[in-house]
């Protein structure tokens, strides 16, 4: 009986404390309550479970060839998942498992500003069309891999300058080696140069 009485007493004490706090809040007025509410608002926006990766590792790369359902020069996002290199274009998701990758080549290349040139040509005529002479430096990544039936496949994308270096480091982290062919084996010595060659002091 004594124990039950103790519990009831403790409950009453707690209730009294709560009433006291409420009365203090009521005395401090609505301004403080509003401020407390505003301060707590961001907590409501935090999801209850850990969200998926917000953005891909490489955004808006240029697709050249190899990803089914994506046209040449369309923009593509690249994400390095735990087990695969993931290419995303709108709702299309194409996965290349790291285990299937046989070779990755990293090259330096040029692009022309095609859409901008078209817009400039429409706006300013021939002087605007001269924008086609302007070249845009990019890093070209060529990935050789095998599909689930052992068939030889390949794809090529172009990243913003020096993004290729970041991709190389990230791929190394997943156990995929990236080759940079010597200058003699490179496709076009004028427009496509080895990154390593370029970064030499």
């Amino acid at each position: 009986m004594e124990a039950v009485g103790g519990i009831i007493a403790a409950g009453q004490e707690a209730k009294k404390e709560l009433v006291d706090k409420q009365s203090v809040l009521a005395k401090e007025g609505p301004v403080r309550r509003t401020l407390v509410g505003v301060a707590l608002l961001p907590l409501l926006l935090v999801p209850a479970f850990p969200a998926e990766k917000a953005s891909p590792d490489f955004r808006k790369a240029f697709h050249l060839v190899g990803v089914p359902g994506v046209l040449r020069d369309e923009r593509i996002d690249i994400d390095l998942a735990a087990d695969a290199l993931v290419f995303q274009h709108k709702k299309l998701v194409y996965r290349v498992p790291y285990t299937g990758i046989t070779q990755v080549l990293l090259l330096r290349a040029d692009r022309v500003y095609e859409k901008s040139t078209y817009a400039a040509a429409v706006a300013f005529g021939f002087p605007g069309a001269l924008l086609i002479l302007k070249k845009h430096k990019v890093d070209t990544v060529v990935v050789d891999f095998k599909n689930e039936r052992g068939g030889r496949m390949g794809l090529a994308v172009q990243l913003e300058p020096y993004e290729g270096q970041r991709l190389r480091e990230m791929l190394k982290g997943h156990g995929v080696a990236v080759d940079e062919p010597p200058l003699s084996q490179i496709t076009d010595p004028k427009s496509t140069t080895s990154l390593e060659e370029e970064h030499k002091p």
Partner: protein
Amino acid sequence: MKSRSARILPLFLCAGLVIALGGEKKGGTRYEYVQVDRFNVAEDVVDFPADYQIGIMEDLIKALQRTKNLTGVLREGETLPEGKQVLHLTGTVTKFKKGSQAARYLVGFGAGATVVVAQVRFYDATTKQLLLERKADGKVWIGVMGGKSAGATNGLAKEIVKVVKANFL
């Protein structure tokens, strides 16, 4: 009236015979599957972009997949279907002219054309017998904003598919 129809009928029969004989393919074998190897690049072609090499293969596979009389297209390294006629297609890029989109757009008249020439070989995948060897090319010399240079691989693929259709399907 009767004599007129009697004269026309043999003509139709002859025409039918000609079409039937003309439709027979070289070697007499109709292939259901085509296996495509990635094209090699000749040693003297030094400036051929690596992505074009993939582009030829992918464009060729796409073009072959659109072909009506073909059951399937296989890639290099894939297992051949048992008991089926498989045509094995290999090739070597023998000439490449990079061209310039700017020259095509600003100058025109054939200036800055991109050219890819390949020596294509067709084998019977089972017997490994060489059936046909042809030179095929893809060119870009005109197009929207001068045309994209990479379109040359698509032109090459279309020409190879024409040869496949004419001889093996």
